[in-house]
């Protein structure tokens, strides 16, 4: 990614330098050639429509090329490839809290394997922060109240700066950290050295602890919908809309259950706003995601990009993705029958 960005950047530097030097040189030349001593009488020229069109058209053509080029890069920067490993991030004044799906939690440090796509699913506990790793040329604001996401793939082991790029108060400049890129073997060792179980199993615990399992059961007796297989699929809402059950939707369903009601159910689920920490919510989200393919401890399925910020990429290759749940491409078919089945 850095390569793409740099290429465009240097192209722009070249264009900018060209125009700056061209115009400066012309001005300098005219200023000397037509100085009063040498040219005591000005010749009045009113203008030239042909020239105007020329120097409107040329810059326009140039910027259109730049637009397309940069838009392509932007698409790459904002659409996580399939099969990316996922890391959850909670920003707060003034620290970064990471949670790996394998279980480890970190503060202000993020260990990732080299050569793997890493997708960040991020939210903030308070104000807006911004996740910025200059070496990877990526940045995305971390907002309170919803998930945003971005992704990167580190190509060189090493330690890289992580900055908070959105002003967030007193210690904004202290909200820095490091991305530690390790080779795959070292990373696996690191990830599995801890005692903590996976994120989904932590979520499973919360699921019991907060009584979610009382209503959300796998048999038909639950007062709430069966959550198995919800994730990654369209959900029909009672107002007729259909939404994609992505991380943001799950999050919203837990914290603001009233805002989107699954069709066929009543708005009886209590809000858990204020009772769950962002970390617990993340655990629950990871758990419900894992339920998506039936087995909690199965590899986390490939998910769609989160609600809103970075919409779904047109389905690309992704053949090496190990997941199978995408066999049912969610955005392709609104399939209102699907949620109905679950009732």
């Amino acid at each position, binding site marked *: 990614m850095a390569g793409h960005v740099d290429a465009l950047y240097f192209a722009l530097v070249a264009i900018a330098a060209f125009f700056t030097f061209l115009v400066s040189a012309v001005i300098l030349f005219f200023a000397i050639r037509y100085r009063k001593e040498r040219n005591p009488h000005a010749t009045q020229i009113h203008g030239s429509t042909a020239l105007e069109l020329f120097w409107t058209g040329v810059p326009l053509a140039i910027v259109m090329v730049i637009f397309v080029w940069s838009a392509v890069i932007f698409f790459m920067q904002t659409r996580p490839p399939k099969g990316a490993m996922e890391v959850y991030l909670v920003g707060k004044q003034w620290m970064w809290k990471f949670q790996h799906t394998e279980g480890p939690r970190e503060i202000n440090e993020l260990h990732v394997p080299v050569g793997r796509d890493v997708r960040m699913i991020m939210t903030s506990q308070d104000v807006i922060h911004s996740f910025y790793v200059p070496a990877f040329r990526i940045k995305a604001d971390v907002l309170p109240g919803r998930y945003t996401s971005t992704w990167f793939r580190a190509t060189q082991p090493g330690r890289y700066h992580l900055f908070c790029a959105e002003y967030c108060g007193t210690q904004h400049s202290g909200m820095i950290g490091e991305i530690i890129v390790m080779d795959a073997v070292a990373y696996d060792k690191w990830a599995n050295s801890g005692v903590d179980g996976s994120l989904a199993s932590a979520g499973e615990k919360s699921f019991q602890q907060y009584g979610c399992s009382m209503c959300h059961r796998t048999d038909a007796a639950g007062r709430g919908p069966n959550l198995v297989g919800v994730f990654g699929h369209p959900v029909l809402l*009672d*107002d007729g809309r259909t939404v994609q059950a992505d991380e943001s939707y799950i999050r919203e369903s837990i914290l*603001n*259950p*009233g*805002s989107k*009601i699954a069709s066929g159910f*009543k*708005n009886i689920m209590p*809000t858990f706003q204020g009772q769950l920490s962002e970390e617990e919510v993340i655990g629950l989200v990871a758990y419900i995601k894992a339920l998506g393919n039936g087995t909690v401890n199965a590899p986390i399925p490939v998910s769609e990009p989160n609600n809103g910020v970075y919409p779904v990429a047109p389905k690309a290759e992704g053949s090496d993705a190990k997941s199978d749940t995408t066999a049912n491409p969610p955005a392709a078919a609104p399939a209102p029958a699907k949620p109905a089945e679950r009732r």
Partner: protein
Amino acid sequence: MPDSTPAVHNLKHHFADLEQQKDSSTFAMWLFLVTEIMFFGGLFAAYLIYRLYYFNAWVAGSQTMEIKLGAINTAVLICSSLTMVLAVHSAKLGNRKLTSLFLILTLVLGFTFLGVKAVEYHGHWEHHEVPGANFHFEHEGNFDPNQVQIFFSLYFAMTGMHAFHMIIGGGLLLWLLISNLRGRFSTEYNTPVEMVGLYWHFVDLVWIYLFPLLYLISHHHNG
């Protein structure tokens, strides 16, 4: 015309004639109304976005409105627009008495509006519908009370800004009334009356949209 002030007296030094002066004021007033449109525009944009996002909450919030009071107030404002227009008309004809009469009527109607609005606000306060610590919204429906709070935030911002404009309008009317009683206006010179008229109608116009948006359009949906 009775005791009309000499036209020259009202011509400011930097204008060539009264016509240029009047054209300038009218044009300036319309430009000012443009800024008002953009001012309220920000609120309307917010309203629209949240209505699309939080439809159920919007319905719930809207259904707490007293349509009857809103309708009465709409009628009151429309009447005040009529009296205002008549005030302008009489000022143009140089009829000082009628001008005063209509200005007073407009003023009275304006305050009636504000009074009714105050009653409504009081009701919202009683029902804990004012955003903030006091806010409490307990109704059946598939929505999050916080979203209803946003509805009320916008409700108070919009109607509050509108009421604020009415109060300024009231001040202007009072000033017109006093000037008129002092015989400042004549057939030649009555621009201030006309300008305040434009302002007053604009404020009316904002309400013409606020009324359906806040009171009516969600009346029949079930949230």
